[in-house]
């Protein structure tokens, strides 16, 4: 028998994101008959609004309200979940900044198996949950078997599970207040404040063309090569995380889940491998061109057009050709 499935619902200011519906889809991939229980933790009217918004997708919603839970502090929420959750269940959590903070420790406290960043769920055979993960930034995939006989905590990659069509339980959901089960919470980690990212000198989200560079740009002096191409195209230079880590460009240029979300018409990914965190920042279905020396780079799976070449040679020649065409048409 497949154990009961619980979905941890991430929410902010009363709004849940796509992951709430995606975790229903994930639960049904574990067990077609699953009717997962949503667990929503927070405080005040925001919490109630979040619970209300789940009535379309969940048939049972457990809410845990405490003033101290107003900001999602993983240390406190872990304690609350350990008190509320029955042992032996499967707990689904979105694999994002909060899920990474919460889930590994939660699995220890529940004495449950743990699998993170699952991209596909293949089903259950006996006591084994069969899933697919990726390693090496998406260069290879792996089949993973997880023994769920004492329960499991599974983090699911955002966007990996498509929500089911229609609305199976509209308006009928039961909201159960579990706050009384939680009791006093205390932690040696205290939330102080959230600091919003600095705007920086360029707003890359406003450009129709982005020349985006990754580790393949190799050194700071080479950034100029991308800058020249961006100028020729009337676009801007953006980048992936390693370029910011190396301090070659400012944080405001970073595309991805921990950087900016962009929606250009054309996205030239130059020397970018294409990690899921990076791709999460590209919206609006742009025309993606991948230029990379490594033909195995995952970026080629999502790009429209790929060129296997050394970008340090390719980009200057591309810029030169554009400038030639522009000087011809200007005459």
């Amino acid at each position, binding site marked *: 028998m497949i154990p009961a499935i619980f979905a941890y619902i991430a929410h902010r200011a009363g709004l849940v994101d796509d992951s709430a519906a995606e975790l229903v889809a994930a639960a049904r991939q574990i067990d077609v008959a699953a009717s997962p229980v949503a667990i929503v933790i927070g405080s005040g009217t925001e919490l109630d609004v979040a619970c209300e918004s789940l009535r379309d997708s969940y048939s049972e919603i457990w809410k845990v309200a405490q003033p101290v839970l107003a900001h999602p502090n993983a240390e406190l929420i872990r304690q609350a979940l350990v008190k509320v959750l029955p042992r032996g269940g499967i707990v689904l959590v979105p694999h994002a900044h909060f899920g990474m903070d919460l889930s590994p420790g939660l699995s220890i406290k529940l004495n449950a198996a743990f699998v993170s960043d699952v991209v596909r769920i293949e089903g259950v055979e006996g006591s084994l949950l069969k899933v697919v993960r990726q390693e090496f930034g998406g260069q290879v995939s792996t089949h993973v078997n997880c023994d769920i006989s004492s329960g499991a905590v599974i983090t699911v990659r955002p966007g990996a599970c498509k929500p089911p069509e229609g609305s199976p339980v509209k308006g009928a959901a039961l909201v159960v207040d579990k706050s009384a089960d939680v009791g006093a919470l205390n932690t040696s980690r205290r939330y102080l404040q959230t600091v919003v990212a600095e705007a920086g000198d360029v707003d890359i989200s406003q450009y129709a*063309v982005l020349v985006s560079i990754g580790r393949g740009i190799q050194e700071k002096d080479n950034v100029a090569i991308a800058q020249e191409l961006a100028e020729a195209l009337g676009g801007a230079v953006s980048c992936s995380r390693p370029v910011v880590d190396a301090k070659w460009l400012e944080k405001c240029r970073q595309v991805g889940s921990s950087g900016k979300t962009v929606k250009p018409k054309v996205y030239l990914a130059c020397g970018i491998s294409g990690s899921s965190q990076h791709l999460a920042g590209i919206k609006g279905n742009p025309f993606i061109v991948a230029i990379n020396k490594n033909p195995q780079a995952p970026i080629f799976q999502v790009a429209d057009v790929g060129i296997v070449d050394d970008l340090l040679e390719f980009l200057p020649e591309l810029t030169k050709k554009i400038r030639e065409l522009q000087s011809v048409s200007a005459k």
Partner: protein
Amino acid sequence: MEILVCAKRVPDTSENEIQLNTTGSDLEREELVYSINEPDNYAVEEALQIVGQVGGSVTVVTVGSEDDEEILRREMAMGANQGVLLSDDAFLGSDGRGVATILKAYVQKGHYDLILTGVQAEAGAAEVGGMLAAMLEYPFASLVNSIEILEGRKLKISREIEGGNREINEIDLPCVLSIQTGINEPRYVGMRGIRAVASVPVPSYGASDLGLDANVVGAAPAKVKRVDYFVPARGKGAEILGGSREENIEKLLALVTAKGGLS
């Protein structure tokens, strides 16, 4: 401050294309170049900077085999006071929980104020730090991108959250933090530095040294098992332009112009 950094030796993907063996049971490891997991190197640098400010020592520990000693020596050349190898046939096949169990046993042999890990290694699980913290009953924070030492055995830390925003927390010591890349600029390690620590002994501890029941680690109790590696079906995938560079540029410009990228 006594700081322990948990590190791992991994195939360096900036140096390698990852290929699978014919059965998909493993990577083709013959030609791989290994290095320290990049986030772990940032964690060691952060530890060195903290000790530079407030004194103390940095120990770098890894769970693995003799081959993994090279990253310990590299980090010692960088300035870490000690490298420690946790190695035993009984450890082979451990899942994340198994690795955290081994590390916990080592941590409890000493007195560490602060334990750092890299945010994740090559498998992208990002699990050992949080598990270790829960086992030790220490507070934990992931994705840490700045650390400030406060009075009264506390730290002020910043976590990376969505959109480049940062979440500021105060956390009591001892604690476990997973360190995000970009938190600092790791210092350069030259061959001379590595030679200088070449003969420094690196202690190795096995299950019995750590007082570990060999049945709680390794493959047997692992609840999570990797079955195989595979390269996913390409799906639609990119149309790869296979012409000369000049032809590719022409074709690309035509496509980009059609998509509104060049007027």
